[in-house]
């Protein structure tokens, strides 16, 4: 009796209940995030081919990486993709959100429709569809050649333009950013616009002086989130181009994957782990820089 009571007392404590309820998450976090991360940090100092036990080699992987041409190429491609694709995506999301924030009967339908790409955009099916659409005899060229006859055989997958096929795909997945913008737009106090109207400000001025400044926290949030997403993009590069031609679409994550799971030859899991840790440092630095720039342009109440 006494024991039962103390158990109930123990479980009844707020702290304990909190831990019990978050246990599933804690277990998942430890099993699928913490342990793999610690292991990969260890492997990054090893020569490890999956099939044989890892042997410690110190900093050799890291030294080799900085002399690896393909590493620099992959880094360049990924930065290009992230730094061009992300702002384009956020701007595009904002424009669509501004259009869809007016309430009419059909806006609900439109919102759902425009959100759709970001649900399915990262999928394998879309990647394959994208490849087909941008083929030189694909539907995109067929459409463009209606207006520009010269485009009928344009090669989207050439070394200079292949990365743009992937950038267009990421911009097309603007849905989740758009939704966040929409809810932020709703929260802007209507009285501000009324006051501005009384002062004779036109729509354009209202946008620059009221809407945009009040949206900066949301823009900041979207920018951070999408930048991280871009650095971690994988499916598109793997399935649409597989890094070709000449590594011009070789995303960093794909390079890591190729080193860890090569088509032929032995896995270089140690090298891949080191690459992954360098990626972590880069993404953290970029995010930190974004946060440091916050005071300069983000408006807070």
């Amino acid at each position, binding site marked *: 009796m006494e024991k039962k009571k103390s158990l109930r007392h123990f479980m009844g404590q707020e702290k304990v209940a909190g831990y019990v309820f978050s246990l599933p998450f804690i277990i998942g976090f430890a099993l699928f995030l913490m342990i793999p991360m610690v292991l990969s940090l260890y492997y990054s100092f090893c020569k490890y081919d999956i099939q044989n036990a890892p042997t410690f080699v110190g900093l050799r992987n890291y030294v080799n990486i900085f002399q690896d041409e393909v590493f620099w190429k992959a880094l360049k491609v990924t930065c290009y993709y992230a730094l061009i694709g992300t702002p384009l995506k956020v701007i595009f999301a904002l424009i669509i959100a501004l259009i869809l924030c007016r309430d009419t009967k059909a806006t609900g339908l439109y919102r759902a429709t425009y959100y759709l790409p970001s649900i399915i955009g990262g999928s394998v099916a879309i990647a394959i569809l994208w490849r087909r659409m941008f083929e030189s005899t694909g539907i995109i060229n067929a459409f463009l050649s209606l207006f520009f006859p010269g485009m009928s055989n344009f090669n989207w997958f050439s070394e200079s333009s292949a990365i743009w096929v992937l950038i267009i795909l990421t911009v097309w997945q603007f849905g989740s950013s758009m939704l966040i913008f929409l809810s932020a737009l709703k929260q802007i106090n209507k009285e501000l616009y009324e006051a501005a109207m009384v002062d004779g400000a036109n729509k354009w001025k209202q946008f620059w002086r009221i809407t945009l400044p009040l949206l900066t926290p949301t823009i900041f949030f979207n920018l951070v989130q999408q930048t991280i997403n871009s650095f971690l993009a994988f499916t598109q590069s793997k399935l649409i181009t597989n890094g070709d031609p000449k590594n011009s679409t070789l995303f960093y994550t794909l390079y890591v994957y190729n080193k860890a799971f090569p*088509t032929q030859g032995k896995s270089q899991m140690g090298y891949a782990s080191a690459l992954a840790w360098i990626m972590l440092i880069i993404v953290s630095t970029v995010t930190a820089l974004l946060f440091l720039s916050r005071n300069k342009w983000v408006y807070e109440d």
Partner: protein
Amino acid sequence: MKKKLVSIMLSGVMVLSLAACSGNGGGTTTSNDTSGDANQTENTSSESQPAATPVDSPLAVGTYDPATAGDVELNFGWWGNQVRDEVTKNACDYFSEVYPNITFNLNAQTWNDYWPQMQTFAASDMLPDIMQQDYAFIEQWVEAGNLLDLTPYVESGALDLSNVSPSIVDTGRSSSDGHIYAVCAGENAPALLYNKTLTDELGIEVPDNMTWDQFAELSKKIYEESGYGVIYGNTNSENPLTYYARGLGHQAFFEADGLSTSVEEMTGYYQRLLDGVSEGWMYDTNKIANVSEATIPEYPLVYGTDPSVRTWVAFAFSNQLSAYQAAAEADGIELGITSWPENNPTQANYLKPGQFFSITTDTKNPDLAVAFLNYLINDTQAGILLQAERGVPASTKVAADIADAVGEKDPTYPVIVKYLEFVAANSSPIFPSLPGYAGTVNDDAIKPTADEVLDPKPSISAEEAATKLVDSASKIAADY
């Protein structure tokens, strides 16, 4: 504690069965001589009973009766194409029909996805019981200790290879210890598949045993008249280079410490690519990117709406004719088959044991897996169901028995058999299984070098490319 007890008991049984063997002293029970370590002896213990006789079964299963195995699920992994996936499933289903206690978990992948997945399985001791292997990689997998030594089973009669020619059996032996680790699933040869409908329309004849210069001239003509091109030398594969090296008189492309070919010899190879691209008929990297991830039904030989994205040939292997022809049917294209072009074709060409079947050390039912393997190799009905899609069956008896039945279902089969007869008379012995470092050379040296040479505006000369390849291959070999 319990485990320990079991292992003690097992070793006791082993000792007893060993004693039984030596007591009988028969020639059929010498399996213990060849198997060096205890592990292998344990595997063979169950069938080292004297006078192993084939089981009375409707299927050719060797000396082990699958009906006695209890309810077991066998895992079977391979890479392939739609046709192969279907025929392999049929062969497995038929086995399950006769032995309802055996079910199959089938894992069909593309070539590119198969190897990474198997490596991951290997790391977690989850390899399928039966695993398709490639001639090039056997050595690498034996080295890693993932393949079961089949020699004892062959000697005990559980795996019957008496109808397979010894030279083909030898291709499944490891060069390090001479034991058999893989059994040939079918015989192939490099084969140039071409769009016969197109060449007929153009009034062009494609001769057998073409030299490279003849081929280049022909391709140029076809390109100028129709716009159809050629994809060559772009992949992370040693096949075209091996063929080239053999044409120059080397048996193999890879040697223990690097390439067999000199820089001067490799220059000739890269010059072909530079010339082909500058003349327009060979795809450059930009055009290839359009089709680089293509599977057989998407390959430009059989798919594409415009001549500018089509090819008139594919550098393939003879067994692939079946899958390519199936894909070409939609456009009403008839495919032809001939040898890869090379300046000394009879020296370059070879008969290749196509895919192999191996049993992995992760299997829990080695005897059953061997019985199933025996069925795949020696059973006539299995041969008919498999449709010789992996190549002409290694067992000469099965090859002869299935010819009519398979030919009826798949009209390409007699064409393939005829081509292989041609190759048998116009070829030289195959190169040995590749050294372990070869795969890394394919990925990290052959592919990037080809990319630079096949650039629409190449900034590298043939000689620079050749130097780069030869140097990085020997570096990779040394680091391995």
